[in-house]
C-alpha cells in the first residue's frame, strides 16, 4: 500500500518515464548513456539551485535571486583567479561564505521586517547582478590548472557517455538536500513553516532562526550552483543565467512540490529538472522549430506536464480517502 504522501512524487516520476519513452520512440538514440550523461551535466547548475529553491518553497517562500547569484559567483571566481593569487579552493570557500551570508541577510530582512520573500529576493536579484556588473562588465575566461582539472574530470560510462564531476556534484546536492529537508530538525521546521507560521510558532518552532537558515541554505546552493556553472562554462559573465530562477521554480513545481509550501519531495525536483532538460533535448533533437515555436513549445509542454500531474493526482485522491 502506498502512502498518499508519495503520490505527487510518483506522478512526477511516471510523467518523466512516459515522456522519455515517447522521446525514445521518436529518436531511439535518446536512450543512450551519452544523452543521459548530458542530461545530468547540462542541468547540473540548475539542479543544485533547484535543491535550495525546493527548501525555500517547502517553507512557503520563494527566492528570485538565485539566477543573479550564479552570475555573480562566476564573475567573482573569474575576477579573483585573474587578479589575485588565491587557490581556487580558497576562492570557492570565500564565495560560498559570501553567498550564504547574502541569503541569510535576505532571510533576516524577510523575518525582521515582515516583507514578502518575493520582493526581498527581487531586490536581492538586482543587487547581485548589479555587483556582478561592478566587478566586470566583460566576460572573463577562467584559466587555472586546478580549475581545468576539475572541468575535465569525468567517468566514461559504457556507450561513451560521460558522467562528469559537476553531474555527480548535482546528484550529491540532491542527496544532501533530501537529508536536510526530510531527515533533520531543520527540515521539520521548514515543513512546519510551510504548514502555517502561526501553528509552527505555537508548536515551539523558532520561526526567525529557521527563516534565516532557509535563505542561507538557498544562498549556499546558489553559490555552489555558481561554482558548477563556472566549471561548466569556464568563464564568468555578468549577463549569465538571466531568468534561471523562474526555470528553477518551474522544475520544483513539476517535481510535485506545492508552491504554497509544506508539501513536496526534494527528489521530485530532480525529476522536475530532468524533465525540463528532456524538453530542451527533445527540441534540439527535433531541430525544426523556429525561435518563436521553441518558446511556444516549451510553454505548452510545461502546461501539459502540470495538467497531467493534476489529473494523475485527482485520479489518485478518492482512493486515498477511502483508505483513510
Amino acid at each position, binding site marked *: 500500500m502506498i502512502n498518499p504522501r508519495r503520490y505527487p512524487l510518483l506522478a512526477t516520476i511516471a510523467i518523466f518515464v512516459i515522456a522519455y519513452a515517447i522521446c525514445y520512440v521518436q529518436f531511439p538514440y535518446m536512450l543512450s548513456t551519452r544523452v543521459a550523461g548530458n542530461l545530468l551535466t547540462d542541468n547540473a547548475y540548475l539542479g543544485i539551485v533547484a535543491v535550495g529553491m525546493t527548501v525555500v518553497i517547502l517553507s512557503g517562500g*520563494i527566492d528570485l535571486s538565485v539566477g543573479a547569484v550564479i552570475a555573480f559567483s562566476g564573475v567573482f571566481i573569474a575576477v579573483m583567479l585573474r587578479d589575485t593569487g588565491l587557490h581556487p579552493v580558497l576562492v570557492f570557500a570565500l564565495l560560498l561564505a559570501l553567498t550564504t551570508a547574502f541569503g541569510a541577510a535576505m532571510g533576516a*530582512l524577510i523575518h*525582521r521586517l515582515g516583507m514578502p520573500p518575493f*520582493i526581498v529576493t*527581487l531586490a536581492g536579484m538586482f543587487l547581485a547582478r*548589479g555587483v556582478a556588473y561592478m566587478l566586470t562588465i566583460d566576460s572573463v575566461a577562467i584559466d587555472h590548472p586546478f580549475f581545468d582539472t576539475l572541468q575535465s574530470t569525468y567517468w566514461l560510462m559504457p556507450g561513451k557517455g560521460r558522467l562528469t564531476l559537476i553531474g555527480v556534484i548535482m546528484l550529491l546536492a540532491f542527496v544532501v538536500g533530501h537529508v536536510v529537508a526530510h531527515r533533520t530538525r531543520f527540515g521539520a521546521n521548514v515543513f512546519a513553516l510551510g504548514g502555517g507560521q502561526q501553528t509552527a510558532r505555537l508548536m515551539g518552532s523558532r520561526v526567525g532562526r529557521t527563516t534565516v537558515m532557509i535563505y542561507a541554505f538557498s544562498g549556499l546552493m546558489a553559490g555552489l550552483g555558481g561554482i558548477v556553472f563556472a566549471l561548466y562554462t569556464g568563464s564568468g559573465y555578468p549577463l549569465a543565467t538571466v531568468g534561471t530562477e523562474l526555470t528553477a521554480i*518551474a522544475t520544483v513545481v513539476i517535481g510535485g512540490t506545492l508552491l504554497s509550501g509544506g508539501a513536496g519531495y526534494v527528489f521530485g525536483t530532480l525529476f522536475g529538472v530532468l524533465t525540463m532538460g528532456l524538453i530542451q533535448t527533445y527540441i534540439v533533437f527535433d531541430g525544426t522549430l523556429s525561435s518563436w515555436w521553441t*518558446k511556444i513549445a516549451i510553454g505548452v509542454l510545461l502546461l501539459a506536464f502540470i495538467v497531467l500531474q493534476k489529473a494523475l493526482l485527482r485520479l489518485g485522491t478518492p482512493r486515498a480517502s477511502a483508505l483513510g
Partner: protein
Amino acid sequence: MMPAGVKRVLPQLITLAVLVALVSAVFPDFLQLHYSDGRLIGPVIDVLKRGAPVALLAIGMTLVVATGGIDLSVGTVMAITGAVAAAAIVAGHGLLWALGLALAAGLCAGLFSGCLIAFLGIQPIVATLILMISGRGIAQLITEGRILTFNLPAFSFLGSGHLLGIPVPVWLWLAAATLTVVVVRRTALGLLIEAVGINRRASALTGINARVILLAVYMISGLCAALAGIVTTADIRGADANNAGLWLELDAILATVIGGNSLLGGRFSIPAAVIGALIIQTINTGILLAGFPTEYNLVIKAALVVAILVLQSPLLAGDLKRVAARLTRLRHPAPATKKERASP
C-alpha cells in the same frame, strides 16, 4: 485632519518627494518645467510619460495581487497586443480595428491565465509563467521576429501625442486608474476581490463566486497590459515583439508592493500602486539624467528599492514606535509602579 484617501498614499507621496529631492541634488534642473509649442516640457513630464506602461500594468497587478495572486505574464501580453495592433495596421485595417483587436488579445490572455487559475487550480505564479514564456513566442510568430513598423499618425498619437499640453500616455494611465478606482469602489467588486484574497474558501461559502472574480481580475490585468502594449508600440511606431515589456512584470509587481499592497492579498490601493510606478520611474529617469556609468544602474536601483521597502515596512514602523516610546519614557520617567517595571 486629512481625508482617508490621502492618508493611505501618504507614505508613497513622502517617498516620492524624498526621491525627487535626491534626484534634484544630482541633477539640479529636475523640477524645471517650461512651455513651448503648446506642450509642457521637462524631466518631470518625462517621468509621468515614461512611467505610463508600468503605471498601467500596476493597476491590473494591484487587483490580481489583492486576490492573493500574481501575474508574471503582463510584459509578454504587452508584446502580444503590440504585435496584434501593428499587424492589424499593416494589414490595412484602421485605428479602431487595431485598438479593438489589441484589447481583445489582452482580454484573451487574461482569460487564459484566469481559467488555468480558477478552473484548473494551477497556482498563479506557474500559470502566468507559462504564458510569460510561450506568449513571447506567439508575439514573435505574429511579427516573424521583425520589428513591425507602421505609419498611422492616429495610432502614434496614443504614444507620443499631446493633449492640452500633456503627453497622451499620461492621460491614458490617469483615466485607466480613475476608471478602475471608481468601478471597484462604487460597486461591490472591490470588496469581493478583497474577500477572495483574504480567504478564498470562506468567501466561496458566503456565496461569492470566487472563480468569476478571479477571471475578472486576470482579464482586467490583461486589459491593462494591452493598454501598456498599445502605448509602447505607438511610441516607437513599431511592434518590437522581442523586447516590448521585457521584465516589466517585475517592475509592476515592485510598484504594487511599494504602493503598500500585500502580496498575500486583501486590502489594496490602486492610487498608491500608481505612485509606486512613478517612484520606480523617477529612479530610472534619475539614473539616466545623473550620467553615472551604466554598470552602476542596477546597484543604485537595488539600493534605493531596498531602502524604500525597509522604511515602509510595517514591522519596522512598530519597532520604531516602541523605541520612540521607550526613549520618551527614559526622558520623562513616569512615577514607575511595580506593574510597569515588570513589563518586558
